[in-house]
């Protein structure tokens, strides 16, 4: 025990000399810190994009929300349901029943071209035709400006994210739907969900504008309890009059965002990985410089009786300390500049824009700092071994 304490005392002493001498090597130390900060900043900010996208698509969906699509459809765009089919779905057991009937909304999903506020170029904006129950099915949906559209009228409401991302989306403005201009009468929020990127109107009016006859693409429902899912699903999938698939909305949205989040994650890790390789060489250079600059100092300590182990650990700790400083700076920069930053991108599953906010979560910060620590360890290990192997007798005479 006393021996271990003595060893820690040795390590602490040798480490202290190393850390105190950093100001004499501030150039290379700073380069290493900046390199690692860059890696972490890029990694965390790119991954925060995927995290934010994922949170928008599925993070805010309650477990009692379900969606029904035609069997085989992997998105609303390629689904199709007739009105009689939507009635059979709404009447299935398991859904909440309100005073006006079951909480199920048959919906139509189309794309309209609108200019993006930041670039002025037209992008695909999702437009949804809904039934009256839609506002109870998504009970987190709130009007934040203006009023809800009236059923039977050519009016629209827009989500908060759509209002901020696309030009001319303020209350009192108009958007082109088919051949007509429809007035915007309100702005709604939906607890950060993807619906905030959409434009909503009466499904029947939208069918007319887009010549869709009496067809829909999906039915959104609210279960009586989350546990009623299997009952609802089984009754629909065993009904010979229907050929549909039933999913919890959170699962469906997760699958809708999977391709995009995977692509962003892969890209982020690829870019940060390449940068990390550079940062490892930066850290190696810094620590080789440190060992080189401290050759006589290290040899003196070894001559006095300090062990190889304490020298190795001290060099590693110094490398790790510089890396962690870089990691913390990078993580802080990513948080300050990107957390909550809103943008929109094309969701390839629905071919429409989804607006979302970058989310720099604690888990991402930990991931970034872990990367920094790995870079520090890899960058420190070879110089540490070199320091421990210095021939004492000749190193003592180094100037």
């Amino acid at each position: 025990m006393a021996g271990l304490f003595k060893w820690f005392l040795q390590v602490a002493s040798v480490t202290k000399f190393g850390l105190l001498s950093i100001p004499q090597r501030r150039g290379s130390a700073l380069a290493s810190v900046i390199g690692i900060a860059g890696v972490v900043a890029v990694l965390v900010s790119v991954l925060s994009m995927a995290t934010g996208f994922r949170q928008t698509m599925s993070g805010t969906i309650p477990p009692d929300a379900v969606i029904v699509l035609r069997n085989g459809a992997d998105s609303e765009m390629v689904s199709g349901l007739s009105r009689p089919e939507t009635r059979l779905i709404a009447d299935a057991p398991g859904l909440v029943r309100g005073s006006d009937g079951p909480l199920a909304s048959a919906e139509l999903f189309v794309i309209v071209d609108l200019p993006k506020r930041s670039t002025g170029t037209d992008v695909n904006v999702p437009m949804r035709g809904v039934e009256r129950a839609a506002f109870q099915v998504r009970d987190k949906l709130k009007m934040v400006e203006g009023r809800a559209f009236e059923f039977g009228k050519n009016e629209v409401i827009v989500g908060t994210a759509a209002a901020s991302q696309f030009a001319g989306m303020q209350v009192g403005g108009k958007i082109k739907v088919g051949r007509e201009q429809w007035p915007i009468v309100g702005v709604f929020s939906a607890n950060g969900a993807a619906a905030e990127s959409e434009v909503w109107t009466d499904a029947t009016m939208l069918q007319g504008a887009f010549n869709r006859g009496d067809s829909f693409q999906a039915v959104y429902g609210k279960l009586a309890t989350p546990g009623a899912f299997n009952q609802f699903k089984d009754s629909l999938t065993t009904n010979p009059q229907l050929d549909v698939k039933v999913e919890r909305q959170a699962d469906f949205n997760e699958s809708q965002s999977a391709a995009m989040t995977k692509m962003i994650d892969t890209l982020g890790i690829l870019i940060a990985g390449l940068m990390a390789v550079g940062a490892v060489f930066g850290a190696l250079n810094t620590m080789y410089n440190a060992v080189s600059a401290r050759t006589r100092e290290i040899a003196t300590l070894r001559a006095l009786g300090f062990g190889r182990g304490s020298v190795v650990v001290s060099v590693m700790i110094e490398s790790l300390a510089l890396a962690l400083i870089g990691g913390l700076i990078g993580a802080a920069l990513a948080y300050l500049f990107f957390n909550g930053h809103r943008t929109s991108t094309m969701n390839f599953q629905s071919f429409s824009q989804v607006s979302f906010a970058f989310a720099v979560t604690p888990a991402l910060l930990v991931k970034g700092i872990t990367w920094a620590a790995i870079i520090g360890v890899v960058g420190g290990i070879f110089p540490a071994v070199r320091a421990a192997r210095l021939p004492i007798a000749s190193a003592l005479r180094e100037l």
Partner: protein
Amino acid sequence: MNEPTKTNGPLVNVDGVEKVFRRGSEDIHVLRDLHLKVPAGEFLALMGPSGSGKSTLLNLIGGLDRPTRGSVSIGGERLDGLSDRLLAGWRARHIGFVFQLYNLMPTLNAERNVELPLLLTHLTKAERRKHVAAALEMVGLSHRAKHFPRTMSGGEQQRVGIARGIVTDPTLLLCDEPTGDLDRKAGDGILDLLQALNREHGKTIIMVTHDPHASARALRTVHLDKGQLSAEAVA
């Protein structure tokens, strides 16, 4: 602080030592069949021209390097039987080093530099402080305890180096050109100090020097030439 090494023979026994360095394909014989005995309490000067092998011999005696052939024993303990780890511990307990360029840690003040070898002992902080104060007192630098090396003269830095060398009360004090980087006046001060440590405190000292003025202070001087002892003089 350290138990004096108990032996009936000489404190230092260099027996048939050879040291060969390899440079490319060439073998360089730095020491050849060298024999040297140093009794406890001696102040020995090792003299010789550059490349004669005197510093190499000092490194072998101090356990900083290993002979190619032959053996070095200190207090009856053969160093070639010790692993690197044990040798490091042995150095910490038995050897005090004084270097030509002082080799002080620039980021530590005088007392922290002197304390360094004590970090390898089991002494408490208070005990370490006491030993450091005594060592600095012995070299006449108590008033400079809080000063950093860069604010000290060469002579003062070497005194700190000597205080660091003696703070653990080692069996043997090895000095490699201790006055080699100092002017005559400062050098004389250092030699006075080494002489006092030998005479008044019984320290066994081996000093490498090329300066006859310095070697004159030793009790005995041995000359090395081309890796072999060539002459010996007793004061």
